[in-house]
């Protein structure tokens, strides 16, 4: 797992990952790249990350992929990422396509739901938490009072 301040240089990361696995005899490689769209007058998105739990979340996916003979990789940005640049790249390598197609879907969806990363819109230089696009992690709400549940 790789974390970078600001936008990702996805071309160099992508190329390096290809080089790293060139001799690994994987038959299928599927990357997923997330790019910041210009919408709602945002200048950028901005990200906070809690690294210790992101690391353990990612390592659990390394184990799950390995059980299926596959490998996952990811890189993500910290801080501000301007529109039309990229904040996220992940990829699955596997011997055959079926596992790779299934795994990239499961991995990216669980990433959206359970990776400890917080997103903010940047508008006029101010960070605004993207609350309505955010998802409570598994097990959320256990500390709330019973009346609130």
């Amino acid at each position, binding site marked *: 797992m790789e974390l970078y301040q600001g936008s990702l240089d996805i071309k160099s990361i992508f190329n390096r990952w290809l080089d790293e696995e060139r001799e690994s005899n994987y038959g299928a490689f599927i990357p997923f790249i*997330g790019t910041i769209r210009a919408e709602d007058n945002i200048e950028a998105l901005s*990200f*906070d990350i*809690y690294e*210790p*739990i992101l690391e*353990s979340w990612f390592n659990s996916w390394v184990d799950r992929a390995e059980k299926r003979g596959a490998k996952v990789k990811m890189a*993500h940005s910290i801080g501000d990422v301007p529109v039309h640049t990229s*904040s*996220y790249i992940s990829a699955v390598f596997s011997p055959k396509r079926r596992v790779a197609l299934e795994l990239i879907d499961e991995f*990216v969806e669980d*990433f*959206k*739901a*359970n*990776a*400890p*990363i*917080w*997103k*903010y819109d940047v508008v006029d230089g101010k960070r605004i*938490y*993207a*609350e309505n*696009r*955010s*998802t*409570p*992690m*598994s*097990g*959320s*709400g*256990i*500390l*709330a*009072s019973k009346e*609130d*549940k």
Partner: protein
Amino acid sequence: MVKIEFLGPIEQDSLEIEAKSLEDVANFLQNIENVSSWLDRCAVAVNNQMCNDLSKKLNSGDVVSILPPVCGG
């Protein structure tokens, strides 16, 4: 003492309290103004392990992290 840290957008400095279980932490945080309205959407980690068990025992020096809704990518 148990340390409670608030991650991402929750605007609250870390707190140190006496707590023997996560339930004690819940009862305490439900009365903190900046925090209580977040709790129904927040997950919890103890010493960087996600935890869904309110009866989880805590020891002095443990760190409880409060994780609000996420959106990576």
